[in-house]
């Protein structure tokens, strides 16, 4: 049942993703991409549960490395997106 449940979620969120992203104007496509990059760092959540088992085995090391890599994505992705979006200004808007 778990499998069906997860596939159901997958289907719904893919459709939702399509609906949301088609509304993003082309002027924001680069920040969208780096922002999406940051979101794909969600793998960190999975990595955390594998890195903290307390067993000094292979899975634990792999998990720890994955935490580091995904954190690069999360931190770097959000910061650089924020940096870019801060530059977008409207005409005559406050500088």
């Amino acid at each position, binding site marked *: 049942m778990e499998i069906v449940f*997860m596939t159901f*979620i*997958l289907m719904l*969120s*893919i459709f939702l993703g*399509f609906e*949301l*992203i*088609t*509304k993003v*104007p082309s*002027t*924001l*496509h*680069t*920040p*969208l*991409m*780096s922002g*999406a*990059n940051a*979101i794909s*760092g*969600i*793998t*960190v*959540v*999975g990595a*955390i*549960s*594998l*890195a*903290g088992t307390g067993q000094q*085995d292979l*899975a*634990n090391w*792999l*998990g*720890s490395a*994955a*935490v*580091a*890599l*995904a*954190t*690069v*994505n*999360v931190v*770097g*992705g*959000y*910061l*650089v997106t*924020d940096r*870019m*979006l801060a*530059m*977008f*200004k*409207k005409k005559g808007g406050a500088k």
Partner: protein
Amino acid sequence: MAATSEFGLLIQFAYIVSAGLFIYGLKLLGSPDSARRGNRLSAGAMLLAIVVALLDQGIVEYQWILLGFVVGAIIGGAAARMVQMTSMPELVALFNGFGGLASLLVGWAALSTALGTFTLVTIVLSILIGGLTFTGSLVAYGKLSEKIGSGAMMFKGQQVVNSLIVLAILVCSVMFTQQPDNAQWLYLVIGLSLLFGVMVVIPIGGADMPVVISLLNSYSGLAACAAGFAINNNILIVAGSLVGASGIILTQIMCKAMNRSLSNVLFSGFGSVSSDTTEVEGEIKPISVEDAYYVLEAASNVVIVPGYGMAVAQAQHVVKELCELMENNGAEVNFGIHPVAGRMPGHMNVLLAEADVPYDQLLEMDDINPRMENVDVAIVIGANDVVNPAARDVESSPIYGMPVINVDHARVVFVLKRSMASGFAGIENPLFYKENTRMLFGDAKESIGGLVREFT
């Protein structure tokens, strides 16, 4: 991860809140006004998901997690702070690669707790997609930063070799799910997926990089999604598929803007096949900075069409200066942005935003083209193929059918160009020979700087 206790249930609900915030954050990205808030909301969602994951009862030891956080945050933070806006495509490619590798490792690590064939299949998927995203992104990074040749690398029998690799991946994957204890199948799957990533990206030429990097973006999401299935975690599935959808849409937009199908981009090296037979008539008419100034001074409606050449010449700041001077002179100035101008989707917009050009002055191709008839002067800076009228008129042209910005419909066209060499795709451009075209030769930054000096 099963929600048996009340605390476990609470954790699952917190993930739902986080997913909702991700979705709402993406929705806010729909407008430049709210985009920054959206990104911060999405970051908040990520923070919530991470905190919740840390509270999970299965975790007994925190030092390795913390070490991972610190290392990752330092690298990511430094990269985000130091990167130049011109090299955003490289950074995004690199980040894609890290995301892919993280999913590969999570899939691999999940093996120790794997039960059942379905989980094994999702583990294979997460390793495969993650691995090919990793090496594919590294090659894309190398091409974008020109650390390796940016051209299409083709060799005889490439299709055969690739087909063999796919076949080998299939065989090894099936064997792995049958004998998960036999580590050699696992290593083979990992090695083959890494090799496949390289093989998929090397035949793709530099001009097609916007497509590839969008596609890899999508893969990095799908890899996270597969990892979510492997470890039974819904938030990974939701966030991963949002990213996957985003990458696929951008890929489609890029392909459409080049009038090519995805399979055409992926399987046929551009440039290597283009035998150009465009007949060009007329002659090149150069113009001096001084004469160009007199024309611009009298113009009341100006459109600037930038390409990657503007970024290479670092000319965006002088362009903004010129733009202000012309506006003070009473002219209306707009920018016409082609979807594939630059090295990634929306690249030009970011570069111009960095130079303080307001985003409502940046018009998309479909908005600018109908206005072209009323434009006095169109200034093309470092763009070539995206303004090539051959795409509209010459059926034999390799880029025939690609939508272009019709600068030749303006009364006068200035083309800023270093020399007469053809564009990235090596295609002759009849625009340069048109009656109303004037060529302003030289470095774009210096030419524009010269115009600015004339104005002041």
